[in-house]
């Protein structure tokens, strides 16, 4: 029983560690950008 619990704790630790690494190694979205979106309009959709 204790062996099973140790294995479960080990697996949980591995999973949480992996999730943490994936979460924190993701590079941030670059927030800079100038301009914006506008709907295509006019008779020629420009």
């Amino acid at each position, binding site marked *: 029983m204790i062996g099973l619990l140790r294995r479960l704790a080990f697996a949980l630790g591995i999973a949480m560690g992996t999730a943490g690494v994936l979460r924190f190694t993701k590079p941030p979205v670059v927030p800079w950008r*100038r*301009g*914006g*979106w*506008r*709907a*295509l309009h006019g*008779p020629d*959709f*420009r």
Partner: protein
Amino acid sequence: MQVTVVGSGATGARAARALRRLLPTAQLAIVDRHRAKAERVAEQLGAGVQVRAALADGPPPDAVVLCVPAGLHEALAIEALHADAHVVSVTDSIPDVNALFNLAPEAERRHRSLVIGAGFSPGLSCLLVRHAADRFDELEEVAVSKSGTGGPDCARQHHRALVAQNWEWRDGQWVRRRGSSGRRLAWFPDLIGPLDCYRAGLPEPFLLQRSFPTVRRLTARMAATRRDRLTGWLPMLRPPHADGGPGGLLVEAWGRRDGVPEVLVYGAADNPAAVAGSMAAVAVSGLGGGWFPAAGAFGFSACRDTVAVLTILRELGVEVSTFEGAA
């Protein structure tokens, strides 16, 4: 005109609805192996819509719209062509697209059109590339990115595509790349915003290369999270949503006008199934109207009048945007 829509899922139902609106006098039939589902869609559309179990049932159609899962398009397109019908397929799978292009000689022999990839991506994406190309003297490079899915079958194909081989057209030859690689930040229109996109098994380069054989580079990517990439090689861990929208589309085109390099960025943020249905309906309504080649197999990048198509799409509620600025 007799039009048969095969498939009554998220895209098929919307294609039927858009067809009802664009071609109110057309006789509409819905084919689905799940008859109850097709009957529900027919009921919503009102009187006069027939429900059939197979394409061969009933009178031969003038046009067939294929809104079925990936892998079924080729056999149904052959059946429809043998019945002398025009075919519009919303497929987004590379094997399907290549198999349908192989039917081009048959379509030409019968003087019928086979519209391939008449959906959101491919479909609206190819139309926007053509719209951009018409503004350039020379188109040099195209990058297409997409996010979101239509119905469950589209979501399954999306899941498969993420780990499938990616094909890029680069300097006159095909280059095979690994799916899920090549992260690139794509700024979709405001409803979706910025998302990381990766290479995937997407058919846009194959469709676009036929229309723009001299272009230097054609790439396609789709949005994915780390979980998507991590679990892409597994079966889907939970059933897909009934509707995978909203989705985004981003088309970046580089070219030259009067010798000066320019870039045009077009995008859309909408429900992919609704847009796909509208694109399929527009393709049917444009058959024989001069918007497309008179016969053969082609995608929306072969459209000869993008303004006319965009006008009808706007009437159907599909808005297209352009990005102005620097990113």
